[in-house]
């Protein structure tokens, strides 16, 4: 899980062009949207692409986004549970 979260943080920084951040700057449970990193709806769509491209997970309904992308930890948990299936 740790390794996955670190990997995710690196990929998030790259996908969202958060050049001023390093993986260690993003807390595992830090809110990604609104407060915390302050990401927006376009970023959520980019994260959906990230999930598909790097983890082979398809999220068809953007409404699921707020729950899955709450934090790096919730993303990692979603990946773990859906990749195992």
């Amino acid at each position: 899980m740790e390794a996955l979260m670190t990997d995710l943080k690196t990929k998030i920084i790259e996908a969202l062009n958060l050049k001023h951040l390093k993986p260690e700057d993003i807390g595992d449970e830090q809110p990604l949207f609104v407060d915390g990193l302050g990401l927006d709806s376009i970023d959520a769509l980019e994260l959906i692409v990230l999930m598909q491209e790097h983890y082979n997970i398809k999220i068809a309904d953007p409404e699921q986004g707020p729950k899955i992308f709450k934090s790096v930890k919730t993303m990692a948990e979603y990946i773990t549970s859906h990749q195992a299936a």
Partner: protein
Amino acid sequence: MRSLIHITGLGVVSAIGNSVDETLQAFEKGTSGIGPITLFPSIHQNQLPVGEVKLTNEALASMLGLQQPITRTAMLGILAARQAVKDSGIKNLNSFRVGFISATTVGGMDRTENFFIDYLKDKTTGNLDDVVHHECGSTTELIADDLGIKDFISTINTACSSSVNSIILGSRLIDKGRLDVVVAGGTDALTKFTLNGFNSLMILDKEPCRPFDASRSGLNLGEGAGFVVLVSDRVLKQESLKSHAVVSGYANTNDAYHQTASSPEGRGSFAAMQQALEMSNISIRDIDYINLHGTGTQNNDSSEGTAIQRLFGDEVPKVSSTKAFTGHTLGASGGIEAVFSVLAIQKGWAFPNLRFKTQIPELNYKPLQELRKGLTINHVLSNSFGFGGNCSSIVFSKG
């Protein structure tokens, strides 16, 4: 004191018809033009419904007397613009100071995206004829050259509000005495680029769209062209032309909220409608019908719907989105819907909002479910709101 700007010619081609007459028949029968993708191969074929004009590129070229097809955007534009000029009653455009103002978001992308297939494999390949008219302005000039207009030619690109802005600019140029006649509107062809672009935003409905419905889940892309011929009052009288309607008010504002989403309270759209009404010097009670932007996305319909409710209060007039018929024709939507708005005035009709079932809970009104005829339609408000917060509204009134 503003001068009267008359509309004396209409031309339109969309998924529901290749002319004004065919369009009116489709409204009467309630036949939507939404269907499967046929224009190009795509993984989204049979997944994403679209509003295609029912003419292949070869058929269009043949109809227009072209030796071979050119960019579809220009061909759709030529078809509609020629209709508008013919309808206008003006025998020789060039006996006036005449302008052509078009709008497009895709330009020649329908051909460019084919070029890139070869080009990406080998930069020395790809047919250069496919990219020579890539630029928005180039597709406009293909239409202007066809009409023989050269005094003033321009292209506006403000996403989905583009062709209302063309009509606004044309009206301003006539009002200021810089031009006498302007053919104004817009054209956009369906392209793989835009289809995939909108799909990446996850705002396309996998079913035929349901604008202003509580269960709406996105838009269907469309294509087409809509042009009007604007003339000054002096030209109208001098040539004894028939005024279909007048342009009585308009406004262009910016929502400045987000690159693609509209503000929840619809501040940009509210301001555009309010300022357009102010300019036309009519009250909210005088508006007989609103042709909504009404794309069918959660965000637009909620935002636009709220702005209308804030502006009209308990006196929201008849409203409908015709995008349930045509799909969202992007840069052409303002021009196409301007033609629809003028037809509403001429015929005394208010168009239905197809597939509507359930009122949006936060709104105190709902769109028309049936075509209404025999009405007195004196003033129509037409809305076009685009990415980048570009909001434009225009009021057409009986001439």
